[in-house]
């Protein structure tokens, strides 16, 4: 347990009796949960932060509004944050992550048609591990190509995203070349369900709750939570612009998220958390669906897994160098880092474990 998270010490930098307005942009996903908890359960207020959460439809909009200062902080895909720091695909914006928002949380969902084909190949009684399903998929892809069918189309939510890297990793387990054997398209999560239902994509990878939403709409079935493919994959970060590192609210942001993570880890708060998140101004999904995802018990197309679907616990909020390195390596493997591994030094400036430690434990001499 992290020291200082649970205590009621007031932020040292917050001016007494005066609240600091902070605006944070987010995309409707379960991994925005700690932001919602910080606001709804009073952890932001305890830090003297008057928190406004603004829901956006696209990662591009979140990024642009953060860049020009319309947002003070943002819920952001770790790879998209690295791309901003390195100026890949868009403007160079020095961002820093003093705290992370979660680990894992994504899942692969397949169409009913593809599920039927996989079922036929798998036979009964087999444990459908990712390695096995990828091998079976490899046979299906080969057959499809031989009969002159269109390539398998896979939807992901952003070009620079763990979703893409997780699917690529899974495909390689079956000897499938993700560069040539399949086609990737980017579709925003709310449109993913329709796209699968309409047959525009054969499968997609997105964050919760969109996989279960697709099931509820009768569009497909969850095949694998991505935690089965890459364990403890860093997912969303809370990022701010580098120039704001010394802002009076910066350490308060870290503490409010750390405290929200402690609150969220308490099973007794799960039902209330689900109700907060279900609200239309946050995620807008059924309460029961959200509760089921948070329960850590995941029923899939060919079985179930007891691995947590998403990690929102205090350990998951640490913005460590190792985690950012892990994401950097995934991006590099996908050929997304122009300049390659030599740019790690630049990219490493994103991770600010020092600010995290400072916020939770105070300056080193005072420990």
């Amino acid at each position, binding site marked *: 347990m992290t020291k200082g998270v649970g205590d009621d010490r007031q932020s040292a930098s917050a001016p007494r009796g005066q609240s600091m307005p902070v605006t944070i942009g987010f995309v409707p996903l379960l991994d925005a949960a700690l932001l919602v908890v910080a606001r709804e359960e009073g952890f932001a207020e305890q830090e003297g932060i008057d928190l406004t959460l603004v829901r956006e*439809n696209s990662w591009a909009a979140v990024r642009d*509004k953060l860049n*020009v200062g319309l947002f003070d902080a943002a819920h952001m895909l770790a790879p998209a944050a690295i791309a901003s720091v390195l100026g890949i695909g868009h*403007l160079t914006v020095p961002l820093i992550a003093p705290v992370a928002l979660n680990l894992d949380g994504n899942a692969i969902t397949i169409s009913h048609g593809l599920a039927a084909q996989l079922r036929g190949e798998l036979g009964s009684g087999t444990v459908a591990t990712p390695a096995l399903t990828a091998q079976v998929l490899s046979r299906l892809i080969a057959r499809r190509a031989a009969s002159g069918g269109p390539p398998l189309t896979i939807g992901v939510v*952003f070009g620079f995203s763990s979703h893409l890297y997780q699917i690529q990793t899974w495909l390689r387990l079956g000897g499938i070349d993700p560069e040539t054997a399949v086609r990737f398209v980017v579709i925003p999560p709310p449109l993913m369900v329709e796209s699968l239902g309409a047959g525009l994509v054969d499968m997609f990878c997105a964050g919760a709750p969109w996989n279960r939403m697709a099931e509820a709409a009768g569009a497909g079935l969850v095949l694998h939570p991505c935690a089965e493919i890459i364990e403890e994959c860093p997912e969303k970060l809370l990022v701010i612009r580098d120039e704001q590192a010394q802002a009076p609210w910066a350490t308060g942001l870290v503490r409010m998220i750390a405290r929200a993570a402690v609150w969220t880890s308490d099973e007794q708060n799960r039902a209330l958390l689900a109700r907060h998140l279900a609200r239309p101004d946050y995620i807008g999904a059924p309460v029961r669906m959200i509760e089921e995802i948070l329960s850590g018990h995941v029923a899939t197309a060919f079985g179930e897994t007891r691995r947590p679907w998403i990690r929102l616990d205090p350990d998951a909020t640490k913005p460590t160098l190792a985690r950012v390195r892990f994401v950097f390596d995934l991006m590099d493997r996908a050929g997304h880092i122009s300049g390659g591994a030599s740019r790690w030094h630049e990219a490493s400036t994103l991770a600010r474990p020092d600010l995290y430690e400072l916020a939770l434990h105070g300056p080193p001499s005072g420990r």
Partner: protein
Amino acid sequence: MVDDDPVRAAILEQGLREAGHGNIARLTASASLLQELAVLDPDMIIIDLANPSRDSLEQMFQISRHVPRPVAMFVDQSDSSMIEAAVEAGVSAYIVDGLKKERIKSILDMSISRFKAFSRLKSELAQARSELEERKVIDKAKAILMQRRAITEPEAYALLRRTAMNENRRILDVAQALVMTAGLLK
């Protein structure tokens, strides 16, 4: 131009044509947007900042197999005030490498001012609508008073005003309360 609001799109298109940027295509966010763009091969794409298709669009530029020319996104990094003005107005733009800087600036300036004019218009319209609604409620309240108390219209209005002043409320609030109560007593 990619805009799902036909009125705003029309306002911007007119402005751009008047400024001599004649070759404009209006598209909406649809499943075939990327194919349509690939066929059009535009020099510049103006898109509503909040359009959910932007993530798809950006990936298309990254992969760029569909687009024959490399695409430099947004505006020149050095011009941060322009970027700020655009984001605040809700304009997002993608520019193909090679387009002249002065042209980019003139198109963006036009887009920003037209987007702003449109949102001003929209809020004015919303205000006019609510003013109209308010007037209707007050008229109804006056009619109720005139009927129940057998008084003239100016007397009814004076009564509303006096009540509002005495209770330190707005005439509209008093009128609304009166209309609601009358409805309950019907």
